[in-house]
Protein backbone atom coordinates (compact mmCIF):
# COMPACT_ATOMS: atom_id res chain seq x y z
CA UNK A 1 0.00 0.00 0.00
CA UNK A 2 1.43 3.38 -0.95
CA UNK A 3 1.83 6.09 1.67
CA UNK A 4 -0.29 9.00 0.51
CA UNK A 5 -1.05 12.27 2.21
CA UNK A 6 -4.86 11.99 2.39
CA UNK A 7 -4.71 8.52 3.96
CA UNK A 8 -2.15 9.63 6.51
CA UNK A 9 -4.18 12.72 7.35
CA UNK A 10 -7.30 10.59 7.87
CA UNK A 11 -5.40 8.16 10.10
CA UNK A 12 -3.91 11.03 12.08
CA UNK A 13 -7.30 12.68 12.60
CA UNK A 14 -8.66 9.34 13.85
CA UNK A 15 -5.58 8.95 16.09
CA UNK A 16 -6.20 12.33 17.68
CA UNK A 17 -9.68 11.07 18.55
CA UNK A 18 -8.11 8.05 20.27
CA UNK A 19 -8.55 5.34 17.60
CA UNK A 20 -5.72 2.91 18.44
CA UNK A 21 -5.97 0.73 15.35
CA UNK A 22 -5.80 3.80 13.12
CA UNK A 23 -2.86 5.02 15.16
CA UNK A 24 -1.03 1.71 14.83
CA UNK A 25 -1.54 1.79 11.05
CA UNK A 26 -0.32 5.39 11.01
CA UNK A 27 2.82 4.53 12.98
CA UNK A 28 3.62 1.64 10.63
CA UNK A 29 3.29 3.95 7.61
CA UNK A 30 5.30 6.68 9.34
CA UNK A 31 8.03 4.18 10.12
CA UNK A 32 8.35 3.35 6.41
CA UNK A 33 8.33 7.01 5.43
CA UNK A 34 10.86 7.95 8.10
CA UNK A 35 13.20 5.11 7.15
CA UNK A 36 13.29 6.45 3.60
CA UNK A 37 13.62 10.03 4.86
CA UNK A 38 16.61 9.28 7.10
CA UNK A 39 18.25 6.88 4.62
CA UNK A 40 19.24 9.88 2.56
CA UNK A 41 20.55 11.85 5.50
CA UNK A 42 22.43 9.75 8.04
CA UNK A 43 24.65 6.70 8.39
CA UNK A 44 22.70 3.43 8.04
CA UNK A 45 23.41 2.27 11.61
CA UNK A 46 21.70 5.39 13.03
CA UNK A 47 18.50 5.09 11.01
CA UNK A 48 16.54 2.78 13.31
CA UNK A 49 17.42 4.78 16.40
CA UNK A 50 16.34 7.98 14.76
CA UNK A 51 13.11 6.43 13.47
CA UNK A 52 12.29 5.34 17.03
CA UNK A 53 13.11 8.73 18.48
CA UNK A 54 10.94 10.42 15.88
CA UNK A 55 8.01 8.09 16.53
CA UNK A 56 8.23 8.81 20.27
CA UNK A 57 8.41 12.56 19.60
CA UNK A 58 5.46 12.29 17.27
CA UNK A 59 3.55 10.45 20.01
CA UNK A 60 4.32 13.18 22.54
CA UNK A 61 3.35 15.97 20.16
CA UNK A 62 0.22 14.50 18.56
CA UNK A 63 -1.85 17.51 19.58
CA UNK A 64 0.34 19.88 17.56
CA UNK A 65 -0.96 18.63 14.21
CA UNK A 66 -3.65 20.88 12.81
CA UNK A 67 -6.15 18.87 10.78
CA UNK A 68 -6.53 21.85 8.48
CA UNK A 69 -2.95 21.35 7.28
CA UNK A 70 -1.07 18.58 5.49
CA UNK A 71 0.32 15.75 7.60
CA UNK A 72 3.66 15.00 5.94
CA UNK A 73 5.16 18.50 6.39
CA UNK A 74 4.32 18.13 10.10
CA UNK A 75 6.00 14.74 10.29
CA UNK A 76 8.98 16.03 8.28
CA UNK A 77 9.39 18.95 10.68
CA UNK A 78 9.55 16.58 13.65
CA UNK A 79 11.92 14.25 11.78
CA UNK A 80 14.18 17.13 10.88
CA UNK A 81 14.19 18.36 14.47
CA UNK A 82 15.23 14.92 15.74
CA UNK A 83 17.85 14.68 13.01
CA UNK A 84 19.36 18.05 13.93
CA UNK A 85 19.19 17.09 17.59
CA UNK A 86 21.12 13.90 16.88
CA UNK A 87 23.73 15.82 14.93
CA UNK A 88 24.03 18.27 17.79
CA UNK A 89 24.49 15.41 20.22
CA UNK A 90 27.15 13.89 18.03
CA UNK A 91 28.81 17.27 17.85
CA UNK A 92 28.73 17.60 21.61
CA UNK A 93 30.22 14.13 22.00
CA UNK A 94 32.98 15.07 19.60
CA UNK A 95 33.66 18.24 21.57
CA UNK A 96 33.86 16.20 24.75
CA UNK A 97 36.52 14.07 23.11
CA UNK A 98 34.58 10.80 22.99
CA UNK A 99 35.65 10.25 19.41
CA UNK A 100 39.29 10.94 20.03
CA UNK A 101 40.10 7.43 21.17
CA UNK A 102 40.37 4.83 18.42
CA UNK A 103 38.20 2.21 20.07
CA UNK A 104 37.16 -1.19 18.91
CA UNK A 105 33.58 -2.41 18.91
CA UNK A 106 33.86 -3.85 22.41
CA UNK A 107 35.42 -0.68 23.79
CA UNK A 108 32.75 1.39 22.11
CA UNK A 109 30.07 -0.71 23.78
CA UNK A 110 31.82 -0.26 27.11
CA UNK A 111 31.96 3.50 26.64
CA UNK A 112 28.28 3.59 25.77
CA UNK A 113 27.44 1.43 28.74
CA UNK A 114 29.45 3.61 31.09
CA UNK A 115 27.76 6.68 29.71
CA UNK A 116 24.25 5.29 30.03
CA UNK A 117 25.06 3.92 33.48
CA UNK A 118 26.07 7.38 34.58
CA UNK A 119 22.91 8.93 33.21
CA UNK A 120 20.71 6.26 34.77
CA UNK A 121 22.06 7.11 38.22
CA UNK A 122 20.51 10.56 37.76
CA UNK A 123 17.00 9.11 37.27
CA UNK A 124 14.53 7.99 39.95
CA UNK A 125 15.35 4.31 40.70
CA UNK A 126 12.09 2.89 39.30
CA UNK A 127 12.51 4.71 35.99
CA UNK A 128 16.14 3.61 35.74
CA UNK A 129 15.19 0.01 36.51
CA UNK A 130 12.41 -0.04 33.91
CA UNK A 131 14.68 1.42 31.23
CA UNK A 132 17.52 -0.95 32.13
CA UNK A 133 15.30 -4.01 31.94
CA UNK A 134 13.35 -3.17 28.79
CA UNK A 135 15.54 -0.88 26.74
CA UNK A 136 18.99 -2.20 27.63
CA UNK A 137 18.54 -5.84 28.63
CA UNK A 138 15.71 -6.52 26.19
CA UNK A 139 13.10 -7.82 28.63
CA UNK A 140 9.45 -7.56 27.63
CA UNK A 141 7.09 -5.20 29.42
CA UNK A 142 5.44 -8.21 31.12
CA UNK A 143 8.80 -9.58 32.31
CA UNK A 144 9.90 -6.17 33.56
CA UNK A 145 6.56 -5.81 35.34
CA UNK A 146 7.14 -9.07 37.24
CA UNK A 147 10.74 -8.24 38.11
CA UNK A 148 9.97 -4.67 39.26
CA UNK A 149 6.72 -5.53 41.00
CA UNK A 150 5.01 -2.71 39.07
CA UNK A 151 1.98 -2.92 36.81
CA UNK A 152 2.70 -3.10 33.07
CA UNK A 153 1.23 0.33 32.48
CA UNK A 154 3.40 1.76 35.25
CA UNK A 155 6.47 0.21 33.66
CA UNK A 156 5.54 1.90 30.36
CA UNK A 157 4.98 5.21 32.10
CA UNK A 158 8.32 4.92 33.89
CA UNK A 159 10.05 4.14 30.61
CA UNK A 160 8.47 7.12 28.86
CA UNK A 161 9.21 9.50 31.71
CA UNK A 162 12.70 8.13 32.19
CA UNK A 163 13.54 8.44 28.51
CA UNK A 164 12.22 11.98 28.48
CA UNK A 165 14.36 12.84 31.47
CA UNK A 166 17.35 11.12 29.87
CA UNK A 167 16.93 13.21 26.72
CA UNK A 168 16.86 16.36 28.84
CA UNK A 169 19.94 15.21 30.71
CA UNK A 170 21.77 14.48 27.47
CA UNK A 171 20.78 17.84 26.01
CA UNK A 172 21.81 19.69 29.14
CA UNK A 173 25.26 18.16 29.15
Amino acid at each position, binding site marked *: MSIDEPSLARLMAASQR*GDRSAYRALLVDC*RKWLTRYFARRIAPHHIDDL*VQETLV*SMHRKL*ATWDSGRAFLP*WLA*AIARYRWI*DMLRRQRDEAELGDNDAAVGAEDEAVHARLSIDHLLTLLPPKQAQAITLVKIEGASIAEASQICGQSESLVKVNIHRGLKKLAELIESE
Partner: protein
Amino acid sequence: MKDASIDNLIDELAGDLTPVRPRRVARGSAWVAAGWMAGAAALLLIFGLRQDLAVRGMPPLSMLAFWLTAATGLAATWSALRMGLPGVGRDYGGWRWAVGASLSLPLAAVAACITDGHAAMEAARHGFGFRCLVQGVAAGLGVGAALFFWLRAGAPTSPTRAGWVIGIAAGAAGATIVALHCASDDVVHIALWHGAAVLLSAIAGRLILPRFLRW
Protein backbone atom coordinates in the same frame (compact mmCIF):
# COMPACT_ATOMS: atom_id res chain seq x y z
CA MET B 1 16.57 -6.97 16.72
CA LYS B 2 16.00 -3.39 15.66
CA ASP B 3 12.95 -4.33 13.61
CA ALA B 4 11.49 -6.14 16.62
CA SER B 5 12.35 -3.19 18.82
CA ILE B 6 10.51 -0.74 16.56
CA ASP B 7 7.56 -3.15 16.35
CA ASN B 8 7.45 -3.23 20.14
CA LEU B 9 7.67 0.54 20.33
CA ILE B 10 4.78 0.89 17.89
CA ASP B 11 2.73 -1.52 19.99
CA GLU B 12 3.58 0.42 23.16
CA LEU B 13 2.76 3.78 21.64
CA ALA B 14 -0.50 2.52 20.14
CA GLY B 15 -1.39 1.00 23.51
CA ASP B 16 -0.69 4.29 25.28
CA LEU B 17 -2.83 6.39 22.95
CA THR B 18 -5.44 8.58 24.52
CA PRO B 19 -7.56 11.17 22.70
CA VAL B 20 -5.87 14.53 22.38
CA ARG B 21 -7.35 17.95 21.88
CA PRO B 22 -5.68 19.53 18.83
CA ARG B 23 -3.94 22.76 19.69
CA ARG B 24 -5.44 25.82 18.02
CA VAL B 25 -3.72 29.13 17.43
CA ALA B 26 -6.98 30.84 18.47
CA ARG B 27 -6.64 29.35 21.96
CA GLY B 28 -3.01 30.48 22.18
CA SER B 29 -4.07 33.95 21.04
CA ALA B 30 -6.58 34.07 23.88
CA TRP B 31 -3.82 33.20 26.36
CA VAL B 32 -1.67 36.01 24.95
CA ALA B 33 -4.53 38.50 25.09
CA ALA B 34 -5.12 37.51 28.72
CA GLY B 35 -1.38 37.94 29.41
CA TRP B 36 -1.39 41.42 27.88
CA MET B 37 -4.47 42.45 29.84
CA ALA B 38 -3.00 41.08 33.08
CA GLY B 39 0.21 43.05 32.50
CA ALA B 40 -1.73 46.20 31.60
CA ALA B 41 -4.07 45.86 34.58
CA ALA B 42 -1.18 45.35 36.99
CA LEU B 43 0.90 48.27 35.70
CA LEU B 44 -1.94 50.71 35.25
CA LEU B 45 -3.58 49.88 38.57
CA ILE B 46 -0.30 50.46 40.39
CA PHE B 47 1.06 53.44 38.44
CA GLY B 48 -2.01 54.78 36.63
CA LEU B 49 -2.86 55.85 33.09
CA ARG B 50 -1.07 58.86 31.63
CA GLN B 51 -3.15 61.80 32.69
CA ASP B 52 -3.64 63.50 29.33
CA LEU B 53 -4.87 60.32 27.63
CA ALA B 54 -8.51 60.72 28.62
CA VAL B 55 -8.50 64.46 27.91
CA ARG B 56 -6.81 64.91 24.53
CA GLY B 57 -5.68 61.45 23.53
CA MET B 58 -2.14 60.42 22.69
CA PRO B 59 -0.02 62.94 20.74
CA PRO B 60 0.80 61.89 17.14
CA LEU B 61 4.42 60.89 17.72
CA SER B 62 3.61 58.77 20.75
CA MET B 63 0.65 57.30 18.88
CA LEU B 64 2.91 56.36 15.96
CA ALA B 65 5.46 54.79 18.31
CA PHE B 66 2.68 52.92 20.10
CA TRP B 67 1.32 51.37 16.91
CA LEU B 68 4.76 50.52 15.54
CA THR B 69 5.54 48.74 18.80
CA ALA B 70 2.14 47.08 18.81
CA ALA B 71 2.66 45.85 15.25
CA THR B 72 6.01 44.38 16.26
CA GLY B 73 4.41 42.66 19.23
CA LEU B 74 1.53 41.30 17.20
CA ALA B 75 3.78 40.02 14.42
CA ALA B 76 6.15 38.36 16.89
CA THR B 77 3.22 36.86 18.78
CA TRP B 78 1.73 35.45 15.59
CA SER B 79 5.10 33.94 14.62
CA ALA B 80 5.57 32.42 18.07
CA LEU B 81 2.08 30.92 18.07
CA ARG B 82 2.70 29.35 14.65
CA MET B 83 6.06 27.97 15.81
CA GLY B 84 4.15 25.74 18.23
CA LEU B 85 2.55 23.88 15.32
CA PRO B 86 5.47 22.72 13.18
CA GLY B 87 5.53 22.08 9.47
CA VAL B 88 8.31 22.05 6.91
CA GLY B 89 7.92 24.96 4.53
CA ARG B 90 5.99 27.18 6.95
CA ASP B 91 7.21 30.74 7.18
CA TYR B 92 7.70 32.08 10.70
CA GLY B 93 9.58 35.22 9.68
CA GLY B 94 6.81 37.82 9.40
CA TRP B 95 7.92 39.47 12.65
CA ARG B 96 11.16 40.60 10.99
CA TRP B 97 9.27 43.09 8.82
CA ALA B 98 7.55 44.64 11.83
CA VAL B 99 10.86 44.85 13.70
CA GLY B 100 12.39 46.48 10.63
CA ALA B 101 9.59 49.06 10.55
CA SER B 102 10.06 49.73 14.28
CA LEU B 103 13.71 50.56 13.69
CA SER B 104 12.43 53.85 12.32
CA LEU B 105 12.08 54.93 15.97
CA PRO B 106 15.76 54.63 16.93
CA LEU B 107 16.68 56.10 13.55
CA ALA B 108 14.47 59.09 14.30
CA ALA B 109 16.10 59.33 17.74
CA VAL B 110 19.55 59.36 16.16
CA ALA B 111 18.39 62.08 13.79
CA ALA B 112 17.11 64.07 16.79
CA CYS B 113 20.48 63.66 18.51
CA ILE B 114 22.27 64.95 15.46
CA THR B 115 19.92 67.92 15.14
CA ASP B 116 19.93 68.90 18.81
CA GLY B 117 22.33 66.80 20.83
CA HIS B 118 21.88 68.70 24.10
CA ALA B 119 18.08 68.36 24.15
CA ALA B 120 18.36 64.71 23.17
CA MET B 121 20.77 64.01 26.03
CA GLU B 122 18.41 65.74 28.46
CA ALA B 123 15.51 63.60 27.25
CA ALA B 124 17.60 60.45 27.55
CA ARG B 125 18.70 61.37 31.08
CA HIS B 126 15.20 61.92 32.46
CA GLY B 127 14.96 60.20 35.82
CA PHE B 128 12.01 58.04 34.84
CA GLY B 129 13.84 56.47 31.85
CA PHE B 130 15.18 53.49 33.75
CA ARG B 131 11.81 53.12 35.46
CA CYS B 132 10.16 52.83 32.01
CA LEU B 133 12.65 50.11 31.10
CA VAL B 134 11.90 48.07 34.23
CA GLN B 135 8.16 48.61 33.89
CA GLY B 136 8.24 47.62 30.23
CA VAL B 137 10.06 44.36 30.91
CA ALA B 138 7.80 43.55 33.88
CA ALA B 139 4.56 44.42 32.06
CA GLY B 140 5.48 42.09 29.21
CA LEU B 141 5.92 39.07 31.46
CA GLY B 142 2.26 38.07 31.07
CA VAL B 143 2.57 37.83 27.29
CA GLY B 144 5.98 36.17 27.60
CA ALA B 145 4.61 33.55 30.00
CA ALA B 146 1.61 32.84 27.77
CA LEU B 147 3.82 32.31 24.72
CA PHE B 148 6.35 30.29 26.69
CA PHE B 149 3.74 27.84 27.97
CA TRP B 150 2.13 27.65 24.54
CA LEU B 151 5.44 26.74 22.93
CA ARG B 152 6.54 24.45 25.73
CA ALA B 153 3.43 22.37 25.15
CA GLY B 154 3.87 22.72 21.40
CA ALA B 155 6.69 21.59 19.17
CA PRO B 156 8.99 24.48 18.25
CA THR B 157 11.63 23.16 15.89
CA SER B 158 14.04 26.01 16.55
CA PRO B 159 14.12 26.72 20.31
CA THR B 160 16.73 29.44 19.85
CA ARG B 161 14.62 31.38 17.37
CA ALA B 162 11.54 30.75 19.53
CA GLY B 163 13.38 32.28 22.50
CA TRP B 164 14.16 35.43 20.50
CA VAL B 165 10.62 35.79 19.23
CA ILE B 166 9.02 35.25 22.65
CA GLY B 167 11.35 37.91 24.07
CA ILE B 168 10.51 40.40 21.32
CA ALA B 169 6.78 39.78 21.68
CA ALA B 170 6.94 40.16 25.47
CA GLY B 171 9.10 43.28 25.30
CA ALA B 172 6.92 44.91 22.65
CA ALA B 173 3.78 44.08 24.65
CA GLY B 174 5.37 45.61 27.74
CA ALA B 175 6.38 48.71 25.78
CA THR B 176 2.81 49.24 24.56
CA ILE B 177 1.57 49.01 28.15
CA VAL B 178 4.21 51.46 29.37
CA ALA B 179 3.19 53.84 26.58
CA LEU B 180 -0.25 54.03 28.21
CA HIS B 181 1.38 55.16 31.45
CA CYS B 182 4.48 57.13 30.45
CA ALA B 183 3.80 60.82 29.81
CA SER B 184 6.91 61.45 27.71
CA ASP B 185 6.35 62.23 24.04
CA ASP B 186 10.03 62.58 23.24
CA VAL B 187 11.26 60.29 20.49
CA VAL B 188 14.66 59.88 22.15
CA HIS B 189 13.07 58.74 25.41
CA ILE B 190 10.69 56.37 23.64
CA ALA B 191 13.35 54.89 21.36
CA LEU B 192 15.95 54.56 24.11
CA TRP B 193 14.02 53.41 27.17
CA HIS B 194 10.90 51.81 25.71
CA GLY B 195 13.02 50.28 22.93
CA ALA B 196 15.47 48.99 25.54
CA ALA B 197 12.62 47.03 27.14
CA VAL B 198 12.11 45.21 23.84
CA LEU B 199 15.83 44.64 23.37
CA LEU B 200 16.41 43.44 26.92
CA SER B 201 13.42 41.09 26.78
CA ALA B 202 14.62 39.70 23.45
CA ILE B 203 18.10 39.01 24.83
CA ALA B 204 16.65 37.45 27.98
CA GLY B 205 14.37 35.27 25.85
CA ARG B 206 17.30 34.14 23.75
CA LEU B 207 19.52 33.37 26.75
CA ILE B 208 17.01 31.84 29.15
CA LEU B 209 14.24 30.11 27.21
CA PRO B 210 15.75 27.76 24.57
CA ARG B 211 16.86 25.12 27.10
CA PHE B 212 13.27 24.90 28.40
CA LEU B 213 11.77 24.75 24.91
CA ARG B 214 13.71 21.71 23.71
CA TRP B 215 11.72 18.50 23.49
